[in-house]
């Protein structure tokens, strides 16, 4: 669609004025020619294609759907016989508790939003294994980009109830300084970039960040090899940024793992309205990216696949890998959504009952004899207490200073912003009855120059 007309003019003129120039960096593809009687195409755009005399269009349905890798089935039974747990029982229990933590926090916060105690919330029920499983095999210094349904990553990397609540209630402990909606977490310590609402924008950023890690290691071999992991839903994969991200990651050989949570819905839109190909995984191959589809309700499959993907992403100087984790969004899209308006309650209940990442791991642990009903009850009680305690503390905490609204737009406050801050201060002084400032740290005084 974009016209390249003028570019060619510029090119031609340049070529004319500098006939001997351009000795470097020109891709050799342009010097290829079609050999007489060759069985293979030598057009620069596709070098390994054999000629055929059969007129045949490739139909998607003539290829079987990509298989879904799993280690443990719905009953908690190991089906991949080569599988050996690579972590201690204590570690497994920790991951299990992280998953339970997220699911309990989800219930509490969803209700809290319903009571009007916070403005918004998004649960990740049914998808705890994808975030926690993948996070648990990545290095702590690997860089993460999330979409918003990956609370588990923050939990697995060490966030406490207090830190979650700080962001959710936008109090003075919120690293985002009260500027973003709830669930838009971010942490420098954990190497997770702050979440933004626009979908898929994080994907080309992840490619760029991965290229940065690769360059930093090229420039200093003592730098530890690191990868970037980027999460997104199957709906977000319809955005142009998904296309841009995978293509650029492949052409620039970026060590990035794209992890798609295919949970069947983008708000109300079922996948049937989202795409007609074989899910998201089938696209990876088209970009020249090593790809796998996995059972996202199986934390062991998530771990095995992500572990291997990390290894692959660092091979050959770096390359992207795509993982499509199949799950089901058990919950409503968010607190602003009633999903029974577009799907049957019975469908959701079925999924909750039949297959769920938490019960699947629990069954596996019980079969192994490291978990039982008493431990389950103890764990749930103590996690619930921890969350509720942090909840009530966070609710009482002061909000960030009002001044924070003007800061961080630029590295330093501009003259305009200083003037606007003074103007707001004047308003608050003049109309004290019209504004509630006591809950903000420092009250209106924070606006002093």
């Amino acid at each position: 669609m974009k016209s390249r007309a003028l570019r060619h003019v510029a090119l031609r003129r340049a070529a004319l004025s500098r006939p001997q120039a351009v000795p470097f960096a020109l891709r050799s593809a342009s010097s290829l020619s079609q050999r007489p009687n060759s069985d293979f195409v030598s057009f620069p755009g596709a070098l390994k294609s054999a000629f055929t005399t059969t007129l045949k269009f490739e139909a998607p349905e003539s290829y079987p759907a990509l298989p879904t890798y799993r280690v443990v089935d719905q009953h908690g039974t190991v089906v991949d016989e080569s599988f050996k747990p690579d972590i201690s029982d204590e570690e497994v229990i920790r991951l299990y508790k992280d998953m339970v933590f997220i699911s309990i926090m989800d219930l509490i916060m969803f209700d809290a939003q319903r009571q009007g105690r916070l403005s918004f919330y998004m649960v990740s029920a049914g998808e705890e294994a994808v975030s926690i499983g993948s996070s648990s095999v990545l290095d702590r210094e690997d860089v993460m980009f999330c979409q918003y349904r990956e609370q588990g990553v923050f939990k697995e990397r060490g966030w406490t109830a207090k830190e979650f609540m700080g962001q959710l209630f936008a109090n003075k402990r919120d690293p985002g300084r009260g500027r973003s909606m709830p669930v838009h977490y971010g942490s420098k310590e954990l190497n997770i970039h702050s979440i933004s609402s626009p979908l898929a924008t994080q994907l080309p950023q992840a490619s760029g960040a991965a290229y940065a890690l690769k360059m930093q290691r090229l420039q200093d071999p003592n730098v530890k090899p690191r990868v970037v992991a980027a999460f997104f839903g199957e709906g977000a994969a319809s955005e142009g940024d998904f296309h841009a991200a995978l293509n650029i990651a492949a052409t620039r050989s970026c060590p990035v793992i794209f992890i798609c949570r295919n949970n069947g819905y983008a708000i109300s839109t079922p996948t049937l309205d989202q795409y007609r190909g074989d899910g998201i995984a089938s696209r990876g191959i088209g970009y020249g990216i090593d790809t796998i589809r996995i059972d996202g309700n199986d934390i062991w499959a998530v771990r095995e696949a992500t572990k291997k993907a990390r290894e692959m992403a660092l091979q050959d100087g770096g390359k992207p890998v795509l993982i499509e984790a199949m799950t089901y969004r058990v919950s409503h899209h968010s607190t602003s959504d009633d999903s029974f308006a577009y799907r049957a309650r019975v469908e959701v209940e079925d999924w909750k009952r039949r297959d769920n990442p938490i019960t699947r791991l629990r069954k596996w642990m019980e079969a192994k004899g490291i978990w039982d009903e008493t431990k389950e009850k103890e764990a749930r009680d103590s996690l619930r207490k921890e969350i509720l305690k942090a909840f009530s503390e966070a609710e009482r905490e002061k909000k960030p200073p009002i001044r924070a609204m003007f800061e961080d737009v630029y590295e330093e406050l501009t003259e305009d912003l200083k003037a606007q801050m003074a103007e707001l201060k004047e308003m608050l002084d003049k109309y004290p009855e019209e504004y509630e400032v006591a809950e903000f740290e420092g009250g209106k005084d924070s606006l002093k120059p």
Partner: protein
Amino acid sequence: MKHRAVHQLRRAIGASTIRLPVRRCYSTHPPNARLNLPVDYATTPLLAHSSQAALSNKELPEDVRNGPTKKMNLFQAINDAMGIALAEDESVVVFGEDVAFGGVFRCTMKLADTHGAERVFNTPLTEQGIMGFGIGLAAEGMRPIAEIQFADYVYPAFDQLVNEAAKFRYRDGACGRSVGGLTVRMPCGGVGHGGLYHSQSPESLFTHIPGLRVIMPRSPAQAKGLLLAAIRSNDPCVFMEPKILYRAAVEQVPTGAYELPLSKAEVLKEGKDVTIISYGQPLYLCQSAIKQAERDLGISVELIDLRTVYPWDKKTVFESVRKTGRVMVVHESMVNAGIGAEVAAAIQEDPDTFLRLEAPVARVAGWSIHNPLIFEKFHLPDVARIYDNIKRVLDY
């Protein structure tokens, strides 16, 4: 650019009044024109034609002022700035469509050769990808210089610029991360025959976004200093290059590394009767109009180059307007909600400046249309319109 070729041809022929016996092509001007003559970049006082003139700039650091200069056009000066940035800081990388072989406007010539294909490289043809990729690089501590081949094609990247680059520091809050290392270069402005999609000046779309710095240079030496400042700035910068000047504007450029201040306007010429505020290529048209107006009307006009259009230098502008009492803003992009609207509103909003106004603030800018191929010379501000507006502002 054709402009210049024909102009050179004319100079080669001599100062006689020989008329080319061909039908009028894009670069000719009406035979009896007194105002709308092609800009003579070889003599304009807005360019430093001697080493001495180039080094007299007090904004330059001491060592650069004592150093050598070299004759460069705009694309060479931009190339020079990027070469310096790549050499002095290994976190600088340069990428975009077709930049590896030197760029369609030659701005990245030899950079891949000198600094390696890992640091100067082509991307697939995707503006949103280029911008997102640059943001990711900057978020991990690099200093990416992304090129959008024409400003007309920045819109696919608009979401990344507006919602991501501009807000990155703000939403990261106490975490303290930003994409301040990011600089986005894009050729902009009319070129005589660019039509709808090779002529646009979308700067005011970016000035409406908190978090971005928007810069447009007018000359090679200025482009080098401002681009280096943008690259080293810790805020994301949109650097717009008037492509008609790539080859046309030639001047002596200090060879050392130097920055010119961002968000600081430059008074190019002092005057007492009218202030003209502009940036980029139209400054040359302003200069021509001022020359005629001063000769015809016996007045003196002050000319200010904004350089950074956001956050912009209100102080310098207000001081000038308080002195002259009459003011006009000139730019190529559409008059409505353009830079002129912002500058005019700010002028009338400042009580001290408002009281000094002797006439309404005038805006000379593109009409509220798209840039049409064969009508460009009626669309973009020209010397005659600027001249006429000087008279109108004075006659009020």
